[in-house]
Each structure stands twice: as structure tokens, then as C-alpha cells.
């Protein structure tokens, strides 16, 4: 209990500050109070609206994230392991990384239509970079003698990749996945600007137009909580899998 408090008391302080500031301002459109937002959230939950939007958004964010992981991890391993792949992909990655992905919205609509595919592709396009770069860094950092040890024990090329390179790079890969998860939720909003009918991003846009600031905040809080939960999930997985890496030696 005390542990939970020391862990999250900064959040509680921020919420108290918000409530105090909102009471001082005393303008629901300018800055609604925490209690007002909570009330709106309650209504959205009861009406089932929040569930619909959350489901739609989570599906998009997680699909984009999963695609980024599914393509980014093998690509990062290939780039870190095979010189030819590094030579081929490295300049392409550096060149395309700084391109603002939100600026590609019209192109994604043009190429992939206005359905979920273009939204997921949008998230994928942004979330793949931290996955590729972290995986690549992790593979590059595998000590040569560790690889040689495995080879002199009779490991084939595939076994070296699966049993040595992948586990050695795993802490870096999971860091990349954490960054990608965060980016997926950020990009979700941009993606749902593409002719969406549902989703938390769409809800924000819609409520803004109605000057319904409490609903805007309710949706923002929901995204924050979802992002937090998924981040903690990945963090928990990496602490479990990579105890050899995260735990400091005495």
C-alpha cells in the first residue's frame, strides 16, 4: 500500500493541482474540473459509448503496434546481423524517419482508402522506427565472443540468431516496443482524423466542435489510462524476461 503510494503520488498531486486550477478558473469550457470530467466519463461508460470508442481505438492502436513489431523486429535483426541488409536499409531508414507521418494522411487515404487499413498503416509507419532502431542496436551490441562461444558449441547460423542474438537483443527490443506502444497511441489521434465514425480520437474532434470540453478531457484521460496500462504490461514482460539485464549486479 505504502509502496503503491510512493510509486504514484506524483499522479495524485497532478490530479489535485488540476482540480484546484479548474475550480479557480471556474469555466467548464475553458478547463473543466476533475469531478466534472469524472461525471462525463461515468455517463459515457453507462451509455456504452466509451466502450465502443475504446474498442475501436484499441483495435487500431494495437494492430498498428503489432504490425510494427512483426515487421520491425525481423528487419532490425537482419540489419544488425547481415552487412548487406545494413547497407541497403540503413540509409532508407535514416531518410524516411524524419518524414512527418501525419503529413502522409492524404496519401494514405489515396492509397488505402478511408477504412481501418489506412489508419493502421499510419500507426505502423510511425511506430516501426523505434522497433527497428532498438533491435538493430541490440543485435550490434552482442559481444563477438558470446557468438563465437555458441558457434564453437556447434550452433548453426539459425541457432545463433534464435538462441543468442535474439535473447541478447531482447532488452533493447522491448525498449523499442515500449516506445512504439506510446507512439501508437499518439498516432491514433492523427489516424482517426481520417474520416472516422468512431474511436477516442474521433470523439475528441467531435466534442471539440461541440465545445464539449469535459468529453474532450474524458477521452484524453481514457487514452492516457490505456497507454499507461499497455506500457506497464510491456514493462512487466521485460522485467520478467530480462531480469539478467535490468537487475544491477552487486
Amino acid at each position: 500500500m505504502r509502496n503503491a503510494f510512493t510509486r504514484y503520488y506524483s499522479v495524485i498531486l497532478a490530479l489535485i493541482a488540476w482540480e484546484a486550477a479548474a475550480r479557480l478558473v471556474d469555466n467548464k469550457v475553458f478547463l473543466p474540473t476533475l469531478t466534472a470530467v469524472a461525471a462525463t466519463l461515468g455517463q459515457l461508460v453507462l451509455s456504452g459509448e466509451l466502450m465502443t470508442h475504446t474498442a475501436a481505438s484499441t483495435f487500431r492502436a494495437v494492430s498498428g503496434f503489432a504490425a510494427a513489431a512483426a515487421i520491425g523486429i525481423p528487419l532490425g535483426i537482419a540489419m544488425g546481423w547481415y552487412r548487406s541488409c545494413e547497407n541497403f536499409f540503413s540509409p532508407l531508414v535514416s531518410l524516411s524517419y524524419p518524414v512527418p507521418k501525419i503529413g502522409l494522411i492524404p496519401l494514405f487515404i489515396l492509397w488505402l482508402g478511408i477504412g481501418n487499413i489506412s489508419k493502421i498503416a499510419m500507426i505502423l509507419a510511425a511506430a516501426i522506427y523505434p522497433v527497428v532502431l532498438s533491435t538493430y542496436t541490440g543485435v550490434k551490441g552482442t559481444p563477438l565472443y558470446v557468438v563465437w562461444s555458441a558457434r564453437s558449441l556447434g550452433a548453426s547460423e539459425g541457432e545463433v540468431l534464435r538462441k543468442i542474438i535474439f535473447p541478447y537483443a531482447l532488452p533493447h527490443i522491448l525498449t523499442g516496443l515500449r516506445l512504439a506502444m506510446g507512439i501508437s497511441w499518439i498516432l491514433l489521434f492523427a489516424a482517426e482524423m481520417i474520416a472516422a465514425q468512431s474511436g477516442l480520437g474521433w470523439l475528441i474532434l467531435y466534442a471539440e466542435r461541440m465545445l464539449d470540453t469535459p468529453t474532450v478531457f474524458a477521452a484524453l484521460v481514457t487514452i492516457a489510462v490505456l497507454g499507461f496500462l499497455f506500457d506497464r504490461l510491456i514493462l512487466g514482460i521485460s522485467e520478467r524476461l530480462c531480469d539478467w539485464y535490468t537487475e544491477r549486479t552487486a
Partner: protein
Amino acid sequence: MSAEPTPILTCHGISKEFQDGGRTVLALHDIHMQVLPGEFVVLLGPSGCGKSTLLYLMGGHLTPSAGEMRMHGEPIVGPSPKRGMVFQDFALFPWLTVRENVGFGLSLRWARHRIESRDAQIDRLIGMVNLRGFENAKPRHLSGGMRQRVAIARALATDPEIVLMDEPFGALDAQTRDGMQRELMRIALETNKTIVFVTHSITEAVLLADRVVVLTARPGRIKKIVPMDLPRLRWNWRNDFSQRFLELIGLLEELLSSEIHDSVEEGMSGKTR
């Protein structure tokens, strides 16, 4: 000379060049030597003489620029579980337990069908290197000496014909190093393995070796091959200040000191040039 045993490993005129930022550096030049079955060969030389490079060539991790490395007459084309490796910084798999590290080689595809009673084999090796009770520990919880024992057991697990050791005790403190040398000698006698061992410590060479191959400063050439004509387990000899033990140390010191001297002069003249 008909009783001469056939060598396990032979180096035929081995040379090795490296590319260092556009410059070609000759690390080893025209090495001719052989390793006989059951022998403990120490490669001794000043630092940077290419003795580790020679070991990696024997392991098949590097390929020679000239000459040929052969095992039982067959050219060495890459690493093989017939030649176990032990490195100075242990090179353990940090995400695996002691048991999984030792058993790694046996868990690979080539070994899965060939070797039965893998568990018994791993148990025996863990016992041999005195790590009972630490089977489920991960490397980070072990001391340097214990880590190196895991590495030795791991290298022995695939039952290699020859074990190649690259300054295996170089990262250990003096006391641990002393204990590990004795343990290695015990294991060598117990398993009757052929060992090639790289070091820059003269005492270590005299304590362990049947033959010491003294290399020159870069580029490494064979300066002299010195047989250690003392019986194995030389700790008692050292305690008794055996005349021969001290003579051998003196001989190697002399061979090596001229090399260290030369390499220092070379470095200095290189600077003023």
C-alpha cells in the same frame, strides 16, 4: 621416430593480416607447429603478438591469410564442437542459468539425437567444476572464478577433442587464479583433454604446459618451442624451489624479455620517425 604420435592439430605456414583503417597489419607470420594428443600446449608471448589470433585461427573463427590449419589432416573451415573455446571474459550466456549454460551445446540440433543421457553428462560436469548447488543461479550472481568454471564446463560438455583457452584466468585475482590453475590441471588429468592455452604469464606457462610455444613481438613468429621437462602437478616442485622449475622460468623470461625490449624500441622509433 616411428613412435611419434600423429598430431591432432597442425599449423602449416600460417600467416594472418588484418585491415586497420586502410593499413594492412601483419599479425602472424609463417607459423609452423603441431599439437599432439593429450598435450598441454601454452602459447606465450608479449601482448599484441598475435597469440590469441593464432588460437582463434585454430578454433576456425578466423581464416588464415596464408597457410593451412588442419585437424586430423582435414582443413579447418569453421568452428566445430570438436574444438571447445574458453575466453578471458567468460562469454557466458547471461540470460541462462548455470545448468542451461553448461548444457547449451548439448541442446543444439547436432547433439540432440547423437548424445543420450544429456542430463547425467551435465550433472557430472557441474560436479567436476565444483558448482553443485549453483545449477539454477544466473551468471551475474557468480564470482569471476565461478563464471570461468561454468565456461570450462560448457566447453567440455560437447566432449571436444581439444580445448582452446584464451587467457582464461587473466581477468581473475591472483588467489582465484592460483586455485583455478590447480583445478584446470586436475580436470586436464581427469579428462585427458588436449589443451592449447594462451597466456602472457611465465609462471602460469611453466606450471601448466608440457610444451611452451614462445612467440615474438608483432608480427608473431615462433621464437622457440620449449618442452617443460618436469612431471605434471608442479605446485610441489615450486614449493621446493626445484632447480629445474626456476631454470625454466629463467629461460622463458630471457626469451620473452628480448621481445618486450624489441617491441618497446620499435614503438619508440616509430614515434620519433
